[in-house]
């Protein structure tokens, strides 16, 4: 029987854990902005447009024979364009944001299906719908891992440089405006780094489950922290901890890695919320007891 140590010595498994750790670091940091700024739907919209990008990439690679246009580059292109469209419409057009998110979400998915069905299957075989939508972290190659690491470091550097301004923007937009912060530009940067993060995370859990990894660990961290920095750090720790636990369980029980990770994180969220709620009730009762 293959032991865990045997598994860990395999190159693909090492890549799987490294990809998970980098993606989870982004989830802890960027997921914090998603949760505190109530951007879950926006993130969902951007995440699902990456499916169009993946389909477009397969089409370009098979029909136009452009080999460097990998699915990750296609996903980056589509997610960044959707982030720009969302920012433009939020800033300059009087459109309901949720309607726009729905439109972008649906168009992104539809384009993905059309491109995948129009590609030349005699030239190459695309990844299955299942692995695109639900992820297959076992097949993260060296090139993809390198791009993931570069993107993660770039996004974290941007957040470190703009941390104060992003905090002001997400806490009090009016104050940001009167403090000479370029609110429209900063909003665009925030949307774009969310888009890039979605692409990185999609390599671990797939497009459908990006939202879970981007929101649940930081939502748990939000229950126990008093500042944005603490929430980012605790969110990252939770994210890595539960994702690695999920991967080990997936290896042990031979279950799909992405779905197992999401299920573990979801269970922890429910337990955390129950514990916090019960603890709050007990403390309230103690406070109400006459001395």
């Amino acid at each position, binding site marked *: 029987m293959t032991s865990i140590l045997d598994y860990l010595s395999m190159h693909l498994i090492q890549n799987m854990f490294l990809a998970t750790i980098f993606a989870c670091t982004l989830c802890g940091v960027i997921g914090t902005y998603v949760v505190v700024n109530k951007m879950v739907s926006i993130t969902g919209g951007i995440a699902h447009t990456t499916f169009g990008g993946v389909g477009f990439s397969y089409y370009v690679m098979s029909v136009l024979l452009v080999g460097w246009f990998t699915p990750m580059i296609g996903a980056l292109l589509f997610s960044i364009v959707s982030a720009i469209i969302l920012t433009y419409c939020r800033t300059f057009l009087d459109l309901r944001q949720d309607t726009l998110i729905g439109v972008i979400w649906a168009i992104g998915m539809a384009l993905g299906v059309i491109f995948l069905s129009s590609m030349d299957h005699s030239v190459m075989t695309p990844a299955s719908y299942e692995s695109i939508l639900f992820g297959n972290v076992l097949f993260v190659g060296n090139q993809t891992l390198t791009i993931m690491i570069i993107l993660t470091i770039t996004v974290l550097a941007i957040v470190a440089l703009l941390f104060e301004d992003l*905090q*002001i923007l997400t*806490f009090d937009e*009016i*104050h940001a405006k*009167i*403090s000479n912060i370029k609110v429209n530009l900063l909003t665009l940067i925030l949307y774009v780094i969310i888009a890039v993060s979605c692409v990185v995370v999609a390599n671990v859990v797939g497009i459908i489950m990006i939202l879970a990894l981007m929101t649940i660990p930081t939502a748990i961290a939000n229950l126990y*922290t*008093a*500042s944005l920095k603490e929430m980012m750090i605790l969110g990252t720790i939770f994210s890595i901890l539960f994702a690695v636990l999920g991967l080990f369980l997936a290896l042990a029980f031979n279950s799909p890695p992405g779905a197992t990770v999401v299920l573990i994180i979801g269970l922890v969220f429910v337990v955390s919320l129950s514990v916090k709620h019960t603890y709050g009730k007990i403390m309230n009762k103690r406070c109400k007891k006459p001395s």
Partner: protein
Amino acid sequence: MTSELPISIENLTVGYGSEVILNDISLELRNDDFLAIIGPNGGGKTTLFRSILGLIEPMNGTIRIYGEPPATGVKHIGYVPQQSMFDLRYPINVESVIMMGLRIHKGLRPFYSKEEKEMAEVAMEYTDTTDLRSKRISALSGGQLQRILIARALVSKPKILLLDEPTSSLDPAMRDCTYDVLKKVNSDGIAIMLITHDMGSISHDVKRLACMNRRLVCNDRPELTDDMISLGFHCPPGLLKVSDNAKCSCGCHDNNQGDVQ
């Protein structure tokens, strides 16, 4: 000289689309002034503040802040928004909120200097909030949060303080506490302009009173005039007795109108 006035507004008309919200408003905020603007909800009070802060482009008229247009003059202003604007679940502590007031000085530098941190200390001592510095905002009372927002507005040492409904969600004790801070601020030479829809919550320390309901009527004394009552509350002046706890027979009422006397 007009250019030396903290705020000078002349013939200001502001609207959203084709709807006019402020119609030909002229107003001055003087040095050491403490001006309260009352008026019903939807009367344009917050729109006036947003115009002064440079957030809305006027259709007509001019706003000058120490002789400068709002885009550059806003640096002289400390602004205290309504508490209801904030998501109290946001994970942020008191010190971080107050430091935000220094962003206009900090510029693009990603960290605050030692001098700026000392300015925050001074603002916290001034508003008696030093003990709250590490508390999360969700753990604060309404009065404490109001003092924190005033500290944030004062931390950059502005010459003008604008407050939007500063006492709307406070009980009388907290309201008095907030006004004590504002009295100290005003006595230190900072001109104050506040807006409220609740006449009963206006401080005894207000020096001038104005009423706004799309148009503006201003009195150089802290007293309601017949014009204000007619403009702000659509009541014949005789129905609203300012001197006692009056109730207007046409439906609008206020229990402590004597406060403004």
